[in-house]
C-alpha cells in the first residue's frame, strides 16, 4: 500500500537521520533533512572535521576519532547509528556510498538505508554486470570484454575490438581506476598496475576491457524510482568538460547541437528500462558516451546521489534529496511527466582548492578572505568559510557553484559574474580557470568533446591576481612592518620607531585648463627647429624629472611625483622636458617598480603640450651592453612614440657608434636627433679637437639623412655635454663661437653640471656666443651635482648678457612651490652621502652623481683616508689615458684609481701609495724623452691592477679613444708580458660592427616562461634591455600593484597604526586603509600586520628579521657569580623546561632538566624569585624534540620575588599595579 509524501513527512518528523559523510555532501543532505521533514540531522565527524563550517547544520555530531579514514568504517558507523537511535542512514556520495555491504548491514541492523537495496546496488553498480544487463535489454554498450578478464583474454579482446582500449576496474566508478593502453606491448604492464590499483582503491582487483573511444561526449540521465515501480527520468546532464576523467563543468540541458529531442527521448528510455528491470528504487544516474558519429554507448550506472545533482534540481525547481529520502521511507514518487517540467538552463563548476597552473596540485591552508557570490540565478553549495583551515586529508572540493537562467547565454553571463564575485583568499583555487572556460569561444558553442581541456592550453593563461587595492595594502604592510621600504633599494635607511616626516599632502595651486598655449610644435621636426632659429631667443630644457633627480636624488623620483609637477612644468614655456633615459630607465624598474614606457606615456597625458626629451647612450641605448641592430630598432621605436628629442652621446666621441640611431631618427620626421659631444677640460681637448668631432657628426647626419651637409645642419640639434661640469666659461665661449661661425644654422644645445660652481657664467658665455638651448632645472630640486637653476640663469642671461628669453616665470615659481613640498622626502631618504660643490672636479673629472657614490664606496670599504690619493690618481690618469668622463668612462677611471691605490696600500701602506703617486705625477703629461730609465721601469706598476673594463677600454672594445691609443708602456703595465699581443689585437672599429642579432622569438619565449603568461611588447623591450630588473618590476606589479598609488611618505616610511590612509586605485576608485597593529617579530622573525582595508580586516605576515634559530651562534653564558642566572650544569640536551616567564618559584624548585648519557640532571632554583627570562625551552614528552645546550649556557634568569598582596598573598608581578590581580584589593 503506497504512502503519500505528506504521510511519510509526518512519519519522519522528529526522527534522527544520520548522514555518513562530510563536506559539501553532508551539508547538502542535512538541509533537506531539516526543511520540510523537520527531522533531526545527525552527522558523523572525524577529529579533523568536528569544528568545520559544514557541521553547523547538524543537530548532533557522532565523533569518529582521529583517524581521517573513519568514514569508511561501515560497521562502526552503523553501530553508532543504532546507539544514537537513528532511524535512517544517508551515505551521500563517495566513501562507502557504493559499497553494497552498507545497505546490507543497515538492513540487518534494522536501519533504513537511503539508497537502493544491496542487490540492486550490486547489479547496477558492478560495471561488468550492468554491461551484461544492458546487452540483454538491447541497450548499446562500449565494445569490450563480456566480463572481468585475465591478461590473456584482455589481449584477445584488445586485438578483437582494436586499440586503443581502456582497462577499467570492475569495482571502480566515477572515472577512477582507468588505464589507457595504446600499444599491445604496454598491455601486460598496464594490466598488473591497474589491477593492483583497483585492489587498493576498491578492494576488487578485477578488470574488464573497453574500447577507448576518442571523440566522445559524456551524457548522463538522472532517474528516480519509488518502491512501487514508478520511475521518472530527468533531462540529460552534459559532463563533457573533464580532466583526467574527472568532471569539471556540468551542464543541463546539453548545449551540443547533436542533443536532439529524439536522442534525449531514447537515452531516457534506456535509463528507465535499466532501473525498472532490476526493481530499483532511489536515485540513480545512467551514464552514456556519444561519439562523433552520434553513436551512443552505456558506460556505467551510479547508484547514489551525484555531485552534479544540483543542476537538475535547478533546471526543474525540485529537491532530489528530499524526494530520495521520502522514497526510502516508502512514499510514492511525486514526479510525473505532466507536472515536473524543465524550466531553466543550469551550469555547475567545481571549485576545488587546487592550483591549475601548477598541475592542479591540491593545496590546503587557511582561508584568509572569503566573499561568496549571490544574487539572481546563483546557487552555492560549499563546505568552507572565512578563517577555515582547509584540511589536507580529504578531497580538494571546496564548493559547487551553479548558475541558472532562462537561456544558455544568460546562464553563462551569470556564471561569469558569480565567478568574478567569488573571493577565496589564502589558497589557490580553480575559480580563475573556470572563468577562462566559461569565456572560451569553443566552449560557448557547445561543440567540443572530452578532450576540450587538454586541447586548450590557453585556458591556463590567466593572472590570478587580487584587486589592486588588496595588493597595494600588502605593500603598505611590508613597508610599515619594517619601517623602511625594502624594494626601493636604499638599504635599511630607517626603522619602525624612527621619527617620521609629516604626511604627504601637498598643496596644488589651481591650474586653468584653458590657459595653456602650445609654443613649441610637436610632431614636426622642421617646424620645431625653425622656431628655435627664427625667434632668436635663448630657450630652456627642464631636466628636473631626469638629470636633476638622477644626480641628486638617486634617481628615485617617482612617476607619482612627476604627475604632480608635470602639469605645471608643461606651462612654463620650456623647449623640452627631459623626462627619460640615462640611468633613469634602469632605476625606474630597479627601485620604483615602474614600467618606463608607461611612464613616458603618462607624461604625455598629464603634460601634453611641451615636447619630451630622452637621453640615450650610443652603443647601449637604454640597456647595459651594446645592442645589435634588431634590438636597437625595437627600442628606438618605443622611444620615438613618446619622446620628441632624442639626445645621444658616446663617452669616447666615437661618432660611428651613433650611426644606427641616426639612421632611424633622421628618417622619423616627428623626432629630433640630438647627437652630443662629450666635453672634457684637459690638454689635447681643445677647440680644434672638438670642431673635428662636430664635423664628423655633421657628416654622419648628412649620410644618415641622405641630405647634403649644408641642408643636414638644419635638421638636427648638436648637443654639448659637459657631464663633469668642468669646462670654464671662456672655453665655452670659444667653442660655441667656433661652431656658430662654421655652421650658422645649426641649433646648439648646451648641457652642463653644476659641480664646479661655475654653472651660471658658463651658460651665460655659451648663450652669448650663440647657444640656442640651455639645460636647467627648477630651483627647489637644484642641489650639487645636477644642472643649475632656471630663473637665476635666465636672469643672468637677460640682465648681464642682454639676451631675451620667453619663459613663464610666474608658472615656474608656482611649480617651484609644489616641488618644494616634495623635495624634503627625497632629501631625507635619497640624497647622496657626500654633498656640496666640488671645484676639484676640474682635476679629477668625476661626473654628476658618480662623485658621491664613488667616494662613498671608498668610505664604506674602509679606505676613506686614501680618498685624496685616489682623486690625485684620477687626475693623473686622465692625462695618460685620454677620454671623457662620462658614463661608463667615469666608472672605469674611478675603479682603476681605486684598485691601484688600495692595492698599493695593501702592499706597503701609505708610504707605498705616496710612492705610486709620485711615479704617476712624474710621468703624466711629461714627454717621453724627458724620462730616465728608472722612471720608465717604475711606471709599469701604475696600471698593473687594471680590471677587465679598463683592459677592454684599451683594446678598443668600447670604441675608438678620442685622442688615439695611449702610449705602449700603458699596455705593458696593464697586460704584462702579453702586451705585444694586446697591441696587435687592439681595434678602432665600432663595437657595433661585430654584434649578432638577438633571437627575438627565443627571448620572447624565455620571458613568457618566466612570467607564465604572454608579455606585452613593452615588457619584452624592457626585458631585452635589463632582464633582471624588468622581471623584478613585472613580478612586483603582479604582487603589489602600482606603487605610484601610494603617497610619498608612505612609500618611504610606511604607516603607523591608527592613521588612516586614503588612496585611489588605478581605476580611480577610492580606498581606505588603517593599520590596527604591528606585532613584535616572533622567533622566526615574522611580524604580523593586522589592518583594515575598506570594510575588511586582514592579517598579513612580514618577515622582518632573521629567525632566532639562525642567530643561535651567539649564545649567552650564565654569570657564575650571579645566582639569578641559572645555566646548564653540563653539555647535553635540554628535554624539559618547567617554567615560563612570570612564574613565581621557590628555592629548590626544579626549573628544567638536562640529559646527558641518559642521566637526567635536575636544575633547581637557587633562590625564591620570579622567572624573568627563559632562553631555551623544550618539552620532549610532547614534541619528541630536545634542545642541545652547553655547559654554563644561560637558560633561565630569575628576578627578585615580587611583593605579595596583603590580603590574598598572590604575587604582584608588576610594580605599577594598583589593585591585586588575585582578589582585587587595593594595593595602596
Amino acid at each position, binding site marked *: 500500500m503506497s504512502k503519500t509524501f505528506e504521510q511519510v513527512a509526518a512519519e519522519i518528523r522528529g526522527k534522527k537521520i544520520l548522514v555518513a559523510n562530510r563536506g559539501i555532501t553532508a551539508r547538502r543532505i542535512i538541509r533537506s533533512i531539516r526543511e520540510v521533514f523537520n527531522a533531526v540531522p545527525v552527522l558523523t565527524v572525524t577529529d579533523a572535521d568536528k569544528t568545520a563550517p559544514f557541521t553547523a547544520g547538524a543537530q548532533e555530531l557522532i565523533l569518529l576519532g582521529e583517524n581521517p579514514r573513519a568514514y569508511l568504517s561501515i560497521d562502526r558507523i552503523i553501530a553508532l547509528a543504532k546507539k544514537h537511535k537513528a532511524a535512517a542512514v544517508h551515505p551521500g556520495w563517495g566513501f562507502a556510498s557504493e559499497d553494497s555491504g552498507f545497505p546490507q548491514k543497515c538492513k540487518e541492523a534494522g536501519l533504513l538505508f537511503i539508497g537502493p537495496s544491496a542487490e540492486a546496488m550490486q547489479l547496477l553498480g558492478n560495471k561488468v554486470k550492468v554491461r551484461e544487463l544492458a546487452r540483454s535489454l538491447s541497450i548499446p554498450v562500449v565494445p569490450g570484454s563480456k566480463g572481468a578478464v585475465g591478461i590473456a583474454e584482455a589481449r584477445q579482446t584488445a586485438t578483437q575490438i582494436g586499440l586503443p582500449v581502456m582497462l577499467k576496474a570492475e569495482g571502480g566508478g566515477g572515472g577512477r581506476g582507468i588505464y589507457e593502453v595504446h600499444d599491445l606491448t604496454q598491455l601486460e604492464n598496464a594490466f598488473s598496475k591497474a589491477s593492483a590499483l583497483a585492489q587498493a582503491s576498491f578492494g576488487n582487483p578485477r578488470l574488464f576491457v573497453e574500447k577507448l573511444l576518442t571523440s566522445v561526449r559524456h551524457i548522463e540521465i538522472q532517474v528516480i524510482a519509488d518502491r512501487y515501480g514508478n520511475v521518472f527520468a530527468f533531462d540529460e546532464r552534459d559532463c563533457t568538460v573533464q580532466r583526467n576523467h574527472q568532471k569539471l563543468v556540468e551542464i543541463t540541458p546539453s548545449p551540443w547541437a547533436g542533443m536532439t529531442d529524439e536522442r534525449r527521448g531514447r537515452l531516457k528510455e534506456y535509463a528507465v528500462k535499466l532501473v525498472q528491470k532490476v526493481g530499483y528504487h532511489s536515485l540513480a544516474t545512467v551514464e552514456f558516451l556519444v561519439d562523433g558519429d552520434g553513436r551512443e554507448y552505456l558506460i556505467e550506472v551510479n547508484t547514489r546521489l551525484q555531485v552534479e545533482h544540483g543542476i537538475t534540481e535547478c533546471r526543474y525547481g525540485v529537491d532530489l534529496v528530499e524526494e530520495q529520502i521520502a522514497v526510502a521511507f516508502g512514499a510514492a514518487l511525486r514526479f510525473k511527466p505532466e507536472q515536473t517540467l524543465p524550466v531553466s538552463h543550469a551550469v555547475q563548476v567545481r571549485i576545488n582548492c587546487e592550483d591549475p597552473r601548477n598541475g592542479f596540485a591540491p593545496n590546503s591552508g587557511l582561508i584568509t578572505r572569503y566573499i561568496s557570490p549571490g544574487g539572481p540565478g546563483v546557487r552555492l553549495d560549499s563546505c568552507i568559510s572565512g578563517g577555515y583551515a582547509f584540511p589536507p586529508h580529504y578531497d580538494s572540493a571546496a564548493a559547487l557553484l551553479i548558475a541558472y537562467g532562462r537561456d544558455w547565454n544568460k546562464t553563462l553571463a551569470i556564471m561569469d559574474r558569480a565567478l568574478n564575485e567569488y573571493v577565496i583568499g589564502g589558497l589557490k583555487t580553480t575559480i580563475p580557470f573556470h572563468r577562462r572556460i566559461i569565456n572560451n569561444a569553443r566552449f560557448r558553442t557547445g561543440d567540443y568533446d572530452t578532450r576540450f581541456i587538454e586541447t586548450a592550453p590557453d585556458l591556463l593563461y590567466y593572472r590570478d591576481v587580487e584587486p589592486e587595492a588588496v595588493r597595494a595594502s600588502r605593500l603598505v604592510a611590508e613597508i610599515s612592518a619594517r619601517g623602511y621600504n625594502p624594494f626601493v633599494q636604499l638599504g635599511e635607511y630607517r626603522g619602525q620607531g624612527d621619527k617620521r616626516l609629516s604626511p604627504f599632502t601637498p598643496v596644488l595651486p589651481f591650474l586653468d585648463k584653458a590657459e595653456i598655449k602650445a609654443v613649441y610644435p610637436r610632431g614636426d621636426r622642421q617646424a620645431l627647429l625653425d622656431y628655435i632659429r627664427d625667434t632668436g631667443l635663448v630657450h630652456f630644457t627642464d631636466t628636473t624629472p631626469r638629470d636633476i633627480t638622477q644626480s641628486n636624488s638617486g634617481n628615485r623620483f617617482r612617476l607619482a611625483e612627476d604627475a604632480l609637477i608635470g602639469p605645471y612644468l608643461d606651462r612654463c614655456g620650456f623647449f623640452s622636458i627631459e623626462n627619460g633615459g640615462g640611468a633613469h630607465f634602469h632605476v625606474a624598474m630597479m627601485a620604483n617598480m615602474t614600467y618606463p614606457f608607461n611612464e613616458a606615456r603618462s607624461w604625455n597625458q598629464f603634460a601634453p603640450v611641451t615636447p619630451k626629451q630622452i637621453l640615450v647612450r650610443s652603443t647601449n641605448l637604454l640597456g647595459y651592453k651594446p645592442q645589435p641592430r634588431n634590438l636597437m630598432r625595437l627600442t628606438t621605436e618605443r622611444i620615438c612614440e613618446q619622446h620628441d628629442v632624442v639626445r645621444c652621446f658616446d663617452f669616447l666621441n666615437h661618432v660611428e657608434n651613433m650611426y644606427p640611431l641616426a639612421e632611424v631618427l633622421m628618417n622619423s620626421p616627428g623626432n629630433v636627433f640630438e647627437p652630443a659631444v662629450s666635453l672634457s677640460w684637459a690638454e689635447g681637448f681643445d677647440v680644434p679637437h672638438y670642431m673635428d668631432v662636430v664635423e664628423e657628426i655633421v657628416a654622419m647626419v648628412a649620410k644618415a639623412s641622405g641630405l647634403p651637409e649644408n641642408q643636414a645642419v638644419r635638421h638636427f640639434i648638436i648637443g654639448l655635454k659637459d657631464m663633469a661640469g668642468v669646462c670654464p666659461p671662456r672655453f665655452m665661449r670659444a667653442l660655441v663661437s667656433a661652431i656658430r661661425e662654421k655652421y650658422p644654422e645649426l641649433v646648439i644645445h648646451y648641457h652642463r653640471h653644476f659641480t664646479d660652481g661655475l654653472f651660471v657664467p658658463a651658460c651665460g658665455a655659451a648663450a652669448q656666443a650663440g647657444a640656442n638651448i640651455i639645460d636647467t632645472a627648477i630651483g627647489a630640486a637644484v642641489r650639487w651635482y645636477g644642472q643649475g637653476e632656471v630663473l637665476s640663469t635666465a636672469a643672468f642671461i637677460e640682465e648681464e648678457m642682454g639676451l631675451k628669453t620667453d619663459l613663464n616665470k610666474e608658472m615656474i615659481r608656482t611649480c617651484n612651490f609644489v616641488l618644494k613640498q616634495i623635495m624634503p622626502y627625497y632629501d631625507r631618504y635619497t640624497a647622496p652621502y657626500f654633498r656640496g660643490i666640488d671645484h676639484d672636479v676640474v682635476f679629477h673629472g668625476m661626473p654628476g652623481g658618480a662623485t658621491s657614490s664613488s667616494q662613498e664606496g671608498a668610505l664604506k670599504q674602509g679606505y676613506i683616508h686614501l680618498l685624496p690619493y685616489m682623486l690625485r690618481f684620477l687626475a693623473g690618469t686622465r692625462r695618460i689615458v685620454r677620454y671623457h668622463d662620462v658614463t661608463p668612462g667615469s666608472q672605469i677611471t674611478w675603479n682603476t684609481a681605486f684598485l691601484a691605490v688600495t692595492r698599493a696600500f695593501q702592499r706597503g701602506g701609505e708610504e707605498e701609495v705616496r710612492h705610486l703617486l709620485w711615479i704617476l705625477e712624474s710621468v703624466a703629461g711629461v714627454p717621453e724623452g724627458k724620462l730616465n730609465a728608472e722612471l720608465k721601469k717604475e711606471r709599469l706598476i701604475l696600471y698593473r691592477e687594471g680590471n677587465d673594463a679598463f683592459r677592454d677600454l684599451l683594446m678598443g672594445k668600447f670604441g675608438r679613444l678620442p685622442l688615439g691609443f695611449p702610449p705602449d708602456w700603458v699596455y705593458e703595465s696593464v697586460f704584462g708580458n702579453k702586451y705585444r699581443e694586446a697591441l696587435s689585437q687592439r681595434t678602432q672599429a665600432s663595437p657595433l660592427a661585430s654584434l649578432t642579432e638577438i633571437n627575438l622569438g627565443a627571448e620572447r619565449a624565455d620571458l613568457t616562461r618566466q612570467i607564465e603568461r604572454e608579455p606585452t611588447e613593452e615588457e619584452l623591450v624592457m626585458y631585452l634591455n635589463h632582464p633582471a630588473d624588468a622581471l623584478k618590476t613585472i613580478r612586483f606589479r603582479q604582487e603589489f600593484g602600482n606603487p605610484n598609488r601610494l603617497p610619498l611618505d608612505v612609500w618611504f616610511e610606511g604607516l603607523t597604526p591608527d592613521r588612516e590612509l586614503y588612496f585611489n586605485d588605478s581605476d580611480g576608485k577610492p580606498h581606505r586603509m588603517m593599520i590596527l597593529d604591528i606585532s613584535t617579530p616572533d622567533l622566526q622573525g615574522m611580524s604580523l600586520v593586522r589592518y583594515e582595508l575598506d570594510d575588511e580586516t586582514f592579517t598579513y605576515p612580514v618577515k622582518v628579521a632573521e629567525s632566532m634559530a639562525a642567530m643561535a651562534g651567539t649564545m649567552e653564558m650564565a654569570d657564575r657569580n650571579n645566582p639569578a642566572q641559572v645555566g646548564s650544569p653540563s653539555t647535553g640536551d635540554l628535554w624539559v623546561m618547567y617554567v615560563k616567564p612570570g612564574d613565581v618559584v621557590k628555592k629548590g624548585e626544579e626549573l628544567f632538566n638536562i*640529559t646527558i*648519557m641518559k*642521566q637526567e640532571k635536575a636544575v633547581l632554583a637557587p633562590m625564591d624569585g620570579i622567572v624573568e627570562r627563559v632562553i631555551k625551552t623544550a618539552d620532549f614528552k610532547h614534541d619528541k624534540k630536545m634542545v642541545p645546550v652547553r655547559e654554563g649556557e644561560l637558560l633561565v634568569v630569575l628576578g627578585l620575588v615580587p611583593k605579595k598582596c596583603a590580603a590574598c598573598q598572590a604575587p604582584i608581578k608588576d610594580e605599577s599595579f594598583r589593585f591585586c590581580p588575585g582578589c582585587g584589593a587595593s594595593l595602596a
Partner: protein
Amino acid sequence: MTFVEIHESNKFGLTLFTAAACTSTMDLAWQLFEAGRLPEWAGVLAERQSSGRGQFQRPWHSPPGNLYASLCVPQPPPAWCNLISLLAAEALRVVLSGLGLGATIKWPNDLLVAGKKVAGILIEERAGTVVAGVGLNLTSAPMDNRRDRSHAMSAGCLQEFGVALGPMEIWGRFVHEMRRNFLEKTAGGAPADFLHGLEAHLAFRGREIVLDAYNGAKACVVMLGLDSSGGIRVRTGEGQQRVFHSGSIYPAA
C-alpha cells in the same frame, strides 16, 4: 598526602628502606634525601609502584613480583660523572652473569638477555646528589602490545630463563657489586680501561642499528663500540665514524 610504610634495615652496613607500595622508589628516595635521611649507598625498594617511571618520565609498569629500587650513589670524580649509568649497567650485568645469564648492555643503560630487555636503569641528579633507579623484571614483563614506539624491543623476565630469585636477594647482590665496582674503578683513574672492557659486553656490537637522535632524525649506522667519554662510536651510511652521546638505539630490522 600519601602515607608510605617504610622499614629501615641495615645490611652489610648499608641502609635499606623498603615499602610495600609507593608512587616510585625515585620519589621516595628524593623525599628521604630532602629530609636528610638518605646517606650514600642507601637503597629504597618497593614491592609495587603506582607511578613507576623510566627515562623522560615515561611510565614503567610496576606490578608486584619484580625488582623496583633506587640507590643513592656518591658523586664520582669529574671524569666519571657522566658514566654512572654505564657503571650501574655493568654492575647489573655482572650480577646476572653470576646467575648464569649472559646479559648484554644496550647502550647506555638497558640490559638484554637473549635479545629481550629485562632491566632498565634511570639516573637522576639533583642538588649534587645522584640516585640510580633500577627496574628488573623477575616474574613478569610488559607484553608486546604495550610497546610504544620508543621501545622497539620486546621485554622478558628472569623467570623465563629459569632464574627464581627474590627482589631483596638480587638487590643485595647489585648494591654490593655496584659499590665495589664504583670504588675500585673510580679510584683507579681514567675511565678508558673500564669503557674498553665494557665494549665486549655491548649489545649489537658490529651490527647495524637504528639511532634515534632526539631531533626527529633517525639514522641507520653500524655500532662500533664506545669512545673515551662513554658515547657510542658508530659508522654512518657514508662511511664516516661518529660519536653520539644522546639518543636511543635499537636493532635494525
